[in-house]
C-alpha cells in the first residue's frame, strides 16, 4: 500500500495540507527550519523541490528561489539527504525536473530516493506518454510516480494519466506556471469532477493556491491542497529566518484550520 494513499485514507480532514519549499532555500539550515514550521503547523505531506537551472513550469517566485539555491551550491544529493531527515515523520515527495533524474541516472536516482525514504516524485516536464519507463522503475523502488493533470487535458488523456497514477494525482488548477493567484477560476470544480470520475487515487490541487479562502474552496472538491509560491514569498519578505518561520507557521495554521 502506498504510504501517500494511506495518509489520505486515514485522515479525517477535508483535505490534506501539502506545503512546498525549494530544497536548500533559504540555505540548508533555513530550509530545515522552514520544514519544521510546516510540520508544526500540521502539514500532512511535504513537497520539496530539487533546484534546477531551467524550471519552465515555475513562475518568478519559485524560479528565484531555485536560482538562489543553485548559487548557494545546493545539489540534488543535498536535497535528497535533507528530505531524508524528515521522511520518518511524514511522507515527503520531491518535485524534480526530468533532466535532474536523467543525468543522475534514473535507477541511481530512484535508489537514492528510496534509501532516503521518499514517498513520491513529481516530475513536471514528464507527461504520461514519456513516463512509461519511469513509472515502472518507480514501482520497482516502491515510490509513487505522481502524475500531473491539467485543465487542458482531454478526457482520454485523463484516463491514461489515471491508469498510471498512484499516491495522488497533482491537479494543476489553471493553465499557467506556479505562483499565487487571486482566483482559481470557475472551472475548477468541473475539471476536478472530470478527473474524479476516472480514478480512485486522491486528488491534490496546486498552482496558484494563495490563501485560506481558496484553500477552503479547493477542499470542497479535492483531497489535498498544495501551497508553494505564497510560502516562499513569505520567506522572501521576512526580515530574518525567525520571523519567516513564524509567519509561515501562522499562515499554515490558519489554512490547516479551514481544511479540518
Amino acid at each position, binding site marked *: 500500500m502506498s504510504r501517500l494513499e494511506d495518509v489520505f485514507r486515514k485522515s479525517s480532514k477535508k483535505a490534506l495540507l501539502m506545503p512546498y519549499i525549494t530544497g536548500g532555500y533559504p540555505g540548508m539550515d533555513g530550509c530545515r527550519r522552514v520544514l519544521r514550521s510546516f510540520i508544526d503547523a500540521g502539514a500532512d505531506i511535504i513537497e520539496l523541490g530539487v533546484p534546477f537551472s*531551467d*524550471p*519552465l*513550469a515555475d513562475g518568478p517566485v519559485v524560479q528565484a528561489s531555485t536560482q538562489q539555491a543553485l548559487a548557494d551550491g545546493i545539489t540534488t544529493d543535498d536535497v535528497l539527504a535533507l528530505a531524508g531527515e524528515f521522511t520518518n515523520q511524514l511522507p515527503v515527495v520531491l518535485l524534480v525536473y526530468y533532466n535532474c533524474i536523467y543525468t*543522475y541516472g534514473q535507477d541511481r536516482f530512484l535508489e537514492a530516493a528510496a534509501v532516503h525514504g521518499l514517498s513520491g516524485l513529481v516530475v513536471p*516536464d514528464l507527461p504520461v506518454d*514519456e513516463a512509461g519507463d519511469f513509472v515502472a522503475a518507480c514501482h520497482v523502488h516502491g515510490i509513487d510516480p505522481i502524475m500531473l493533470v491539467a485543465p*487542458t487535458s482531454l478526457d482520454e488523456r485523463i484516463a491514461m494519466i489515471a491508469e498510471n497514477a498512484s499516491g495522488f494525482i497533482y491537479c494543476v488548477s489553471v493553465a499557467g506556471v506556479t505562483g499565487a493567484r487571486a482566483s482559481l477560476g470557475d472551472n475548477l470544480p468541473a475539471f476536478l469532477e472530470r478527473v474524479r470520475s476516472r480514478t480512485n487515487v486522491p486528488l491534490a490541487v496546486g498552482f496558484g493556491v494563495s490563501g485560506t479562502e481558496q484553500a477552503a474552496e479547493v477542499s470542497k472538491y479535492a483531497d489535498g491542497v498544495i501551497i508553494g509560491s505564497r510560502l516562499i514569498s513569505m520567506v522572501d519578505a521576512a526580515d530574518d529566518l525567525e520571523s519567516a518561520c513564524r509567519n509561515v507557521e501562522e499562515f499554515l495554521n490558519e489554512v490547516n484550520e479551514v481544511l479540518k
Partner: protein
Amino acid sequence: MTVQSRFGEYGGRYIPETVIPALDELAEAYEHLRQDAGFRQELDSLLDSFVGRPTPLYHAGRLSGELGGPKVYLKREDLCHTGAHKLNNTVGQILLARHMGKTRVIAETGAGQHGVASATAAALFGIPCVVYMGEEDIRRQELNVVRMKLLGAEVVPVYSGSRTLKDAINEAIRDWVTNIENTYYIIGSVVGPAPYPAIVRDFQTVIGQEARRQMLAAEDRLPDEVVACVGGGSNSIGIFTAFLADDSVRLTGVEAAGEGLETGRHGASISRGSKGVLHGSLSYLLQDAYGQILEAHSISAGLDYPGVGPEHAFLHDEGRVKYGSVTDRQALDAFTLLSELEGIIPALESAHAIAYVVKHAADYATGDIVLINLSGRGDKDVHQAAQALGIME
C-alpha cells in the same frame, strides 16, 4: 504519415501536461495542412514574392582562389527578406497559426533574427506578436530590437538565468502555458518538443532543395561537402536534409568553440556536451554532473545556446553528419575575409561555417566543391565586430 517525433532515441515531448493537448493539435493541423495543395500554394507564393526565393547559389571565386584548393559556393540565405533563413520558417508557421485560428503569436530570439522574422510574418497578417529576448542579447543586438519594435512586435526582456536564448525559450514556454488557448508559439529552430523539430526542419528544407538543384545546374554534379553552422541547428538541417541520401556528399556542422573548447566557454553541445533533456526534447546539452544547464559562450548570439536540435544528435550518432567547431577568433577572421574578398558581410553565425572551410583548406583536393550555407547577413553584427576587431575608437 504522422509527423516525426523521435530521431532515434532523441526528441520527444518533455514538457508540462498543460501544453500537450496544444502539441497534439499542432501535429494534427500540420499533418493535414502539409498535404493540402492550397496551403502549399499559399506558402510557395509567399516564399517567392515575400521572402525572395529562390536565393542565389554564388560561386565565391576570390575566396576559392585565396584558399587554393576547394571551389567554394555560397547558398545566399543572407539575401532572404529580413536578412537570414529564419523567415522561411516563420512564414510557414504563421500560416499554420492562422489555419489553427490562433489570434496571438509569441517567439523567442537570440541574435534577434528569428524575432525579426516572427515580427515580420506577424505584421504580414496583422497578428499581435510578443518576442522574448534575453537582456544580454538585447544589449548585443540592439539593431534587431529596434527592427522588431518597428514591425509592431512587443519585445519582452528576460532577466532570468543567463539572460540569453535559453532563458528566452523558458519564458516563451511559460507564456505559452499560460495563454495556450489563443496563442501560437513560433519556435525558431529545430528544437523544442515534438512536433516542432520536424516542422521547422520541413519549412527550412527548401534551402537544400534549391541548392541541390542549383548545384546540379551549375556544375552538373553534387558538391563534395556541405558546411553549415549549428546553434539550435535550423539552417544546417535546412541545407543538409536534401543531401542526406547522397552518400557521396560529406555533411559538416560547425559549432561555436567560443574562447576555445578547452576553456569551457563555448557553445559546442555536440562536440563537448552530454545527453539530456532541455526545452522539451532529449538531445546533447552543456550541463554539469547534476544536469544543471551550463551557460554557452559565443561571440555570435545565434550560436550561444547550450543545446542542439534532436535530429542533429541523431545524425551525429549515426555518423551521417560530422560536427566540428571554430573559435570566436577564427569566426571573426572569416567575417573579415569574406567581406574583403567577396563584398559580402556575413552574419557572425555564418562566419563560423566559412571559418571551418578556411581552417581546413589544406585538406581539400583541388577541384573539390564545397557548398557553404551563408545563413544570414552581418549588418546586425557590425558594432560587435568593430569592437572586437578594433575598427572603431
